[in-house]
């Protein structure tokens, strides 16, 4: 039986999540992920040094062109490379970290305990399911957020409406994300199979579509301006020192510790409420 959230419960979820901030242990999965993101950023910034050069230099030369191996041109493609490697990182390691965080939060909300290694083991035991769900979810979201603007350019060119399409596809993308929002939690917490987890997520979303969207929208809208600005490298490089691109990406990483925290905690808490726990 799936419950529909009331406004009182909506506020209670936020209060619980804020209270959980008192336990720094709960932040460790996100700190770990941020650390990995910083490593990626450091690697991209030092692409010309061994051992990264052997891999990155031929790739950049092949896919972007020789000019992007030079300073400050490399900053033009830095956000793009970072975002894509970050996506890969999320798929390979991020799913385990999110699974771990979900397990820790669910335990914490239930009995004020959060075992780090037990949660890690639980997430690792469901690794392939988590990856599969992440893959479906990412493809669906990218179809809208990337495919939408590409289709617009193909048919109408990069005219005046392009920015509006970009923004619109971002908001629609969040709706798609919301549909899959509870699938990972279902796999971790209830040990559901992929199809069952997707069904469960859809059912909870249908009953609580508005609150689900709000839980997803708030963290994303906080981080979006920084991500967007970092991707506008032409503008940033023309107005500021190239290092500004790095500062923006660092801001995104630091902010994402908290936005990811709120995203995972609110959705996990909401899942528990919806399941009547």
């Amino acid at each position, binding site marked *: 039986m799936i419950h529909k959230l009331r406004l009182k419960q909506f506020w209670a979820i936020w209060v619980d999540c804020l209270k959980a901030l008192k336990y720094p242990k709960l932040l460790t999965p996100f700190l770990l992920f941020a650390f990995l993101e910083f490593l990626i950023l450091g690697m991209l910034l030092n692409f*010309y040094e061994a051992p990264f050069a052997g*891999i990155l230099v031929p790739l950049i030369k092949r896919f972007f062109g020789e000019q992007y191996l*030079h*300073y400050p041109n490399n900053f033009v493609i830095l956000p793009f490379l970072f975002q894509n490697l970050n996506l890969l990182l999320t798929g390979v390691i991020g799913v385990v970290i999110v699974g771990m965080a979900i397990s820790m939060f669910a335990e914490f909300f239930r009995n004020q305990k959060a075992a780090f290694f037990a949660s890690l083991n639980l997430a690792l035991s469901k690794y392939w399911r988590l990856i599969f769900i992440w893959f479906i979810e990412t493809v669906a979201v990218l179809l809208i957020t990337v495919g939408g603007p590409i289709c617009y350019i193909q048919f109408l060119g990069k005219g005046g409406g392009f920015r509006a399409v970009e923004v619109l596809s971002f908001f629609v993308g969040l709706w798609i994300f919301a549909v899959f929002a509870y699938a990972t939690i279902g796999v971790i917490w209830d040990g559901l199979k992929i199809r069952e987890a997707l069904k469960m997520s859809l059912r909870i979303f249908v009953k609580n579509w508005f609150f689900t969207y709000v839980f997803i929208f708030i963290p994303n809208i906080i981080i979006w301006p920084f991500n967007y600005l970092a991707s506008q490298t032409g503008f940033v490089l023309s107005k500021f020192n190239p290092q500004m691109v790095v500062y923006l990406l660092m801001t995104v990483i630091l902010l994402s510790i908290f936005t990811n925290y709120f995203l995972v905690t609110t959705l996990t808490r909401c899942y528990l409420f919806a399941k009547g726990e």
Partner: protein
Amino acid sequence: MRFRYFVLSGFIFLGIACHTDRWLSLEYEAERNFFAAGKSFERLLIHPKAASEEDFVRCRTLFRNFIDRYIAYSDSSKRVSQLVKQAFLNLASLYALEEKFREIISIYNEMIERFASDTVFLTMSYAAKASVYEQLAEYDSAIAVYESLFDRFKGELKENPTRFPPFLLEVPIRIARVARSGNLSGYRERYARARSFYLQIIQKRSRQEDLVGLYQLVAQSYAETGSWEKAVQILNKISSQYADTSQVPYVLLEIGNIYLSKMKNFQKAITYYRKITDRYPYSPPAATAHLYIGDMLFVQNRVKEAREEYRKVIKKFENHAQFAASAQFRIGLTYEKEEDRANAINEYEWLWRKYPLTYEAMIAPNYVGSYLKKNGLNTLAQKAFLRAVDRYKEFLEKYKRSEWTPLAILQLARAYKELGKYQDAVREAQKILADYKNTDAVVDAYRFLGDVYADDLKDINSAKYYYALLLEKFPGYPFAQAVQRKLIQLQ
């Protein structure tokens, strides 16, 4: 088994990863350091006048440190070499902004010494050094520099001129030109020597493009020593023997110009200009040819025919602002000659609207005022000058950093002067001296300030100050004698 594969893949990965271009890291570091120095240079260029001595020193130190750090690698890395060369050039530009000519020369000497094997850069360094000497009016030194460059490559240049930068081929005639500008004795012999050098090469070459260029240099050497007939003869030879080359319309224009301005044979001039407009109607020389034909007709009072010639320029070169603006201004003059005031003013107004970034447009608003004033229409003239003030202000607001900005400021000052607002006029002209001291408008600003102080504000000391500065800084000013006379009168 699995572990073995894992270890093997690890080694392969490390092998790929560690195999890297060892110069890449150095080049990247050099680019980053050069970028930092370049930013400091860019900031300085925005407002060089506002920069302090320390700003210049800091910027120079950045480039000097860069050169000292990377010069050792410039033989091994092409990219580092490019950056080091650019650093040298920026260093020279910094000294130029400070008007430290001796230091510029020492930078060029260093460049010549360090990049002796790079012919292009070496030639450029020599040429730049010589031009500094020319600016300092040290013509003997300039010639010595050119000669030492020429001697370095003379033998090889004779055998294979295409191997070298085109500028190198011009060095002999340039030596003669410098000697002529400096009124040095024997400049005619230098021209003759240059000519004989070119003729020697011509005998050995067979490629059309090379020959056209060399013949043009020979023709120039004749023209610059006043042997017009011989110059025309050579140019005619080019236009008939090498009719397929893209240089022909320019050659025909050169012949027309010699007939027009040197030999005063207008009929012949028109014949050559017509050849261009008929055979190469859309080439840039065709625009000039139409304009000159129009000018000749205008002088002969064949005003309507002249206007038709000018209109052809606008029709054919509508997108070439400079030609079209020249033609439109001249159309205005034809209406003036017919005393058709409304149409004349209409043309000047159009000029301002259609081609704002041209010299003719820039002077048009004030020209309208002066034209009305000349015709005794003082009230209308005052209104025109008021409108001119608005227009120049609008222009300066819209094009804050255009190449035309200093001229617009000067025109604004002139409009203020005509309106009797002398203090405003002085303030605007002084802006040019403060903010645009390296532009051509500075000379006119000095003259303008001298005139306003002398004629309108009756401040004799200030007038003398600006006239004296003008003569001191620009001894080659075309109206130097008139200014000198005015200065004597004031004294």
